């Protein structure tokens, strides 16, 4: 009997049109626990280095963890793992909503998808069975239409759908996967990988159960965890204000990306704030599966030129990137933009970063009216913002260039565009200016998936302790934050309002019947993070790529508490060296032999030896 897991893996070969159901291997559980851990291990083992992420050789994996779909607070998450078409490195993204739990109730902990179909298809998983179905009628449809059409075709409104929109079909490199309408596995271009495989959607219905080793004990522990979660001040704040509460905080901290990261303070921030949303646009707070926080806010524009625009969201990241970063001071316009991104299947973070970049290029004359097809791409031009989002998704005109992301677009443009492209390893930076705290700078530089806040978030604690511009101790802070944020992706819960490792170890023990200590869980996060580092090393990543955009390293911010601040190269170097040391990686960022052995990654050691990355 397998407690806490569904017990099965679904393998799908889209080239051959076949599905196979296999048992979930116990060794995989022992070392990697679930979710992102399962995916990272499977990708490392099964994907040869050097594969084009948008070729049929790439693999895409959906995985859930032992907390997904259980009574652990916020146990709603699934991970999508693949080689990223943005970074050519390891990529993953996590989605909330209801899709992950449904997959587990349908009897699967992981789906591994190989090959590519010739014609558009979708995968239909129904209580332990799976089939590949024709999706010709869905191709070209928005994520909303796709979801509804599949539910209609299969005759069940409770079917959960994760799908791509036109952006994914058109291989926009930062296309996302959209599930349950308003939830996204947003980052690292997982939607483009699905598009390259002509896989429009994964639809799931599950009526099964998750067996719990110690149900009575688990009930008590879950109650305690729920109580503790509700006592965290952020829980109440997030429910009342949504993640938009961060807009004014970031603005006060001087880290709100403004006009393509030229500034960290936006004069119209209040118009994007939680307070503004509550007063003018709020409909209701909605939760993902099993979540007591309910940070999702449904918002509706009642009047004006965006009348009728509706979104569950927009959340902080998208609002800052498509708002202040594009010089847009209208939350109504951002709601419309968020709705478009959701429908078309675009990652709002990368989209906002890319458009901010394009606007700066336009204002500097790097992009001209000829390039934009007459579109006046100035900062703050709301119509142009919405139009360019549509063009990106369809790769029409200027959209074709911008669909490649800032790194590739800047390389093609030349004329100094590379100096203003704000990304790490090809992934656009999110809505916290890296100059605002040294921990953030380090976290973005070394993140395995490129410029992302999904790996570590130390800015808040750094600011509250008054140490944000200090270098000392930051490697350790970032390491601890990575551990705390990796665990949720592995076990399948949300990274907001976290409790301590001890609590999670007790919950996992009660669910699985296997004894876990906090130190065991920490070790698994280190194993997974070192494994994905090894994946990147195998793909050719070196210390050189663990860096920050030129803007962050040379241009001081202009106003507020971050005025005059930029990240000094030598400071970054010092932190990176310390960080490598903490993880047991050498000066070049290659995991050391003893580290790999200690983590039980002997097969990874072998793999790195075979290609000469580690001497034998």
């Amino acid at each position, binding site marked *: 009997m397998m407690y806490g897991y569904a017990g099965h893996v679904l393998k799908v070969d889209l080239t051959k049109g076949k599905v196979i159901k296999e048992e979930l291997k116990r060794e995989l559980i022992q070392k990697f626990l679930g979710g992102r851990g399962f995916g990272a291990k499977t990708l490392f083992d099964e994907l040869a280095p050097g594969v084009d992420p948008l070729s049929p050789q790439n693999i895409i994996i959906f995985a859930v963890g032992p907390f997904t779909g259980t*009574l652990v607070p916020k146990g709603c998450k699934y991970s999508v793992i693949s080689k990223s078409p943005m970074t050519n490195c390891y990529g993953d993204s996590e989605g909330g909503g209801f899709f992950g739990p449904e997959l587990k109730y349908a009897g699967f902990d992981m789906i591994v998808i190989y090959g590519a179909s010739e014609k558009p298809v979708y995968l239909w998983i129904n209580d332990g069975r799976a089939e590949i179905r024709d999706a010709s009628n869905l191709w070209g449809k928005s994520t909303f239409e796709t979801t509804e059409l599949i539910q209609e075709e299969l005759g069940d409104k409770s079917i959960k759908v994760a799908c791509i929109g036109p952006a994914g079909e058109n291989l926009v490199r930062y296309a996302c996967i959209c599930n349950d309408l308003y939830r996204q596995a947003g980052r690292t271009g997982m939607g483009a990988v699905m598009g390259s495989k002509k896989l429009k959607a994964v639809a799931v219905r599950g009526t099964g159960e*998750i067996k719990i080793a110690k149900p009575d004990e688990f009930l008590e522990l879950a109650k305690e965890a729920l109580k503790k979660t509700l006592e965290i001040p952020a829980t109440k704040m997030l429910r009342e204000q949504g993640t938009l509460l961060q807009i004014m905080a970031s603005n006060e901290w001087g880290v709100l990306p403004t006009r393509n990261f030229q500034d960290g303070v936006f004069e119209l921030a209040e118009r994007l704030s939680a307070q503004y949303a509550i007063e003018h646009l709020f409909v209701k707070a909605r939760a993902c599966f*099993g979540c007591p926080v309910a940070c999702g806010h449904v918002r509706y524009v009642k009047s004006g030129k965006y009348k009728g625009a509706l979104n569950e969201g927009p959340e902080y990241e998208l609002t800052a990137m498509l708002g202040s970063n594009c010089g847009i001071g209208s939350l109504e316009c951002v709601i419309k933009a968020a709705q478009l991104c959701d429908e078309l299947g675009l990652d709002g973070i990368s989209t906002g970063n890319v458009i901010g970049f394009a606007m700066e290029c336009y204002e500097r004359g790097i992009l001209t009216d000829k390039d934009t097809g007459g579109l006046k791409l100035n900062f703050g031009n709301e119509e142009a913002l919405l139009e360019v989002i549509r063009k990106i998704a369809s790769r029409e005109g200027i959209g074709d260039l911008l669909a490649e992301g800032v790194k590739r677009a800047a390389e093609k443009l030349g004329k100094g565009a590379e100096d203003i492209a704000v990304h790490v390893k090809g992934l656009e930076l999110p809505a916290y200016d890296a100059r605002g705290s040294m921990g953030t700078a380090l976290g973005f530089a070394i993140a395995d998936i490129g410029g992302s806040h999904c790996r570590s978030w130390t800015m808040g604690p750094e600011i509250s302790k008054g140490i944000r511009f200090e270098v000392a101790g930051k490697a350790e802070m970032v390491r601890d934050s990575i551990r705390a944020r990796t665990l949720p992706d592995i076990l399948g819960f949300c990274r907001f309002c976290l409790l301590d490792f001890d609590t999670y170890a007790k919950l996992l023990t009660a669910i699985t019947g296997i004894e876990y200590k906090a130190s065991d869980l920490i070790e698994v996060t280190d194993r997974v993070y070192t494994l994905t580092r090894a994946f990147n090393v195998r793909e050719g990543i070196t210390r050189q790529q663990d860096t920050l955009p030129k803007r962050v390293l040379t241009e001081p911010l202009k106003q507020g508490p971050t005025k005059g601040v930029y990240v000094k190269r030598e400071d970054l170097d010092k932190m990176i060296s310390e960080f490598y040391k903490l993880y047991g990686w050498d000066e070049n960022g290659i995991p050391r032999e003893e580290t790999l052995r200690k983590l039980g990654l002997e097969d990874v050691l072998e793999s790195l030896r075979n290609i000469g990355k580690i001497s034998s």
Partner: protein
Amino acid sequence: MMPYLYADPSVCTGCRICELVCSLYNEKVISPNKSRIRVVRIEPSIDTPISCRNCAKAPCAEICPTSAIYRDERGVIMVNENQCIGCSACVMACPFGAITIHPEKGVAIKCTLCGMCVDFCPVRCLKIIDSEKLSMEKRYKFAEQMEAKSK
């Protein structure tokens, strides 16, 4: 008066924690499909928990061919699992979808007012109440509103 579980859809966030705790407490497994309370989400803004209302004229009890459905001393409609044959007549009769057939046991299952979901609901949208008390609460709320306006 018959007590029942009252859910306020204007407060419910649709998290479905009630479904999880219901199945864990009553069935010792996690399975929304075995929960006696179910949350229905209608896009974009309705989340409504649905469970038995312990109707005064309970159609499920009236239609049950084996008289397996009865009212206990608390006034709660209960299912005698030994008498139930799993014919689904009650499912057909219930206007709310609040009674279902257990997928393995083949007997009708419904809310027994154990109150676990009330304890776990993170937004306090659930409570056990009867119609007299509920209408009284509403009268007071209405009167308080009038009082506030009169100031």
